[in-house]
């Protein structure tokens, strides 16, 4: 076996992953908090007010990074779901299922802050336009995956059923992303582009990208922590899990 494949197999071993994730997660959380603090400082304090929206536009610094994460996490969940369904790797099942609550959290933030932004700018909390509606469907997909996983008794069968739903739901991701292009929406189009120049001033762009980086780190950290717990629960009968339970006795 070549080195990469070997490393992949080692990583897939629950005790090894549990140990590694436990070591990495605190650093990732610390980095996320640091970058978020810097980004929010830049966005709420340093960046100038918008010429049309005044200070209300500052909601962008929490709304847009969360919206990016709501789609990104769905994509990661679907990739893991695919691996889980095709190769039946336990760790992929666990990772896919651990993605769902984090994705749901970011989708809730997106919808809530979007409503709060919509009220002063559009004059309404909610409208059934394509972007808002497809983002709401995204939340229901996350909740569907969580619900299906909880509803089936056998954990591995539950994971496979929920992974299947997650995989079908991926069609919604491009719909959310392109909804502002395909339909005439009240929601504005993209201002930050990977290809080509962004329609946002540099003084507002760097705080936005810092918060975006922070949410990425946060996601990875939360994913590792959640996957650890799930592995412990799944492998409760095994020696390493029992040893871990004994070791954790007394420590909160």
């Amino acid at each position, binding site marked *: 076996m070549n080195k990469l494949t070997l490393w992949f197999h080692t990583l897939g071993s629950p005790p090894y992953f549990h140990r590694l994730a436990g070591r990495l997660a605190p650093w990732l959380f610390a980095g996320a908090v640091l970058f978020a603090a810097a980004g929010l400082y830049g966005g709420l304090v340093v960046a100038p007010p918008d010429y049309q929206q005044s200070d209300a536009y500052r909601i962008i610094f929490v709304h847009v990074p969360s919206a990016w994460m709501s789609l990104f996490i769905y994509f990661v969940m679907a990739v893991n779901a695919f691996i889980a369904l095709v190769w039946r790797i336990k760790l992929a099942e666990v990772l896919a299922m651990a993605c769902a609550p984090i994705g749901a*959290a970011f989708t*809730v*933030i997106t919808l*809530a802050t979007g409503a709060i932004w919509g009220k002063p700018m559009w004059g309404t909390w909610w409208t059934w336009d394509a972007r808002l509606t497809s983002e709401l469907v995204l939340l229901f997909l996350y909740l569907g995956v969580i619900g299906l996983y909880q509803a089936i008794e056998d954990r591995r069968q539950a994971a496979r059923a929920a992974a299947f739903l997650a995989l079908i739901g991926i069609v919604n991701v491009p719909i959310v992303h392109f909804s502002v292009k395909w339909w005439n929406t009240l929601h504005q189009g993209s201002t930050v582009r990977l290809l080509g120049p962004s329609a946002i001033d540099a003084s507002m762009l760097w705080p936005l990208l810092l918060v975006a980086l922070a949410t990425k780190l946060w996601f990875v950290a939360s994913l590792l922590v959640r996957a650890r717990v799930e592995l*412990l629960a799944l492998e409760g009968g095994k020696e390493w899990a029992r040893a871990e*339970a004994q070791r954790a006795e007394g420590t909160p």
Partner: protein
Amino acid sequence: MSDFLAMGGYAGYVWSSVAIFVGVLAIDFISPRLRRRRVLAELRGRARRQQRKSTENPTP
């Protein structure tokens, strides 16, 4: 400072958005930790029950 807190008259909108962001992520931070505590306690309980069973009925 009070200018900063007032957010040009949009204080309620901006600060509630930031609060939701921080609050929801705080829940995301805490919930797996509570679950970990429950799972570990359950594993210890299972281990204790097994040990008791094996001391009560030692296999000959």
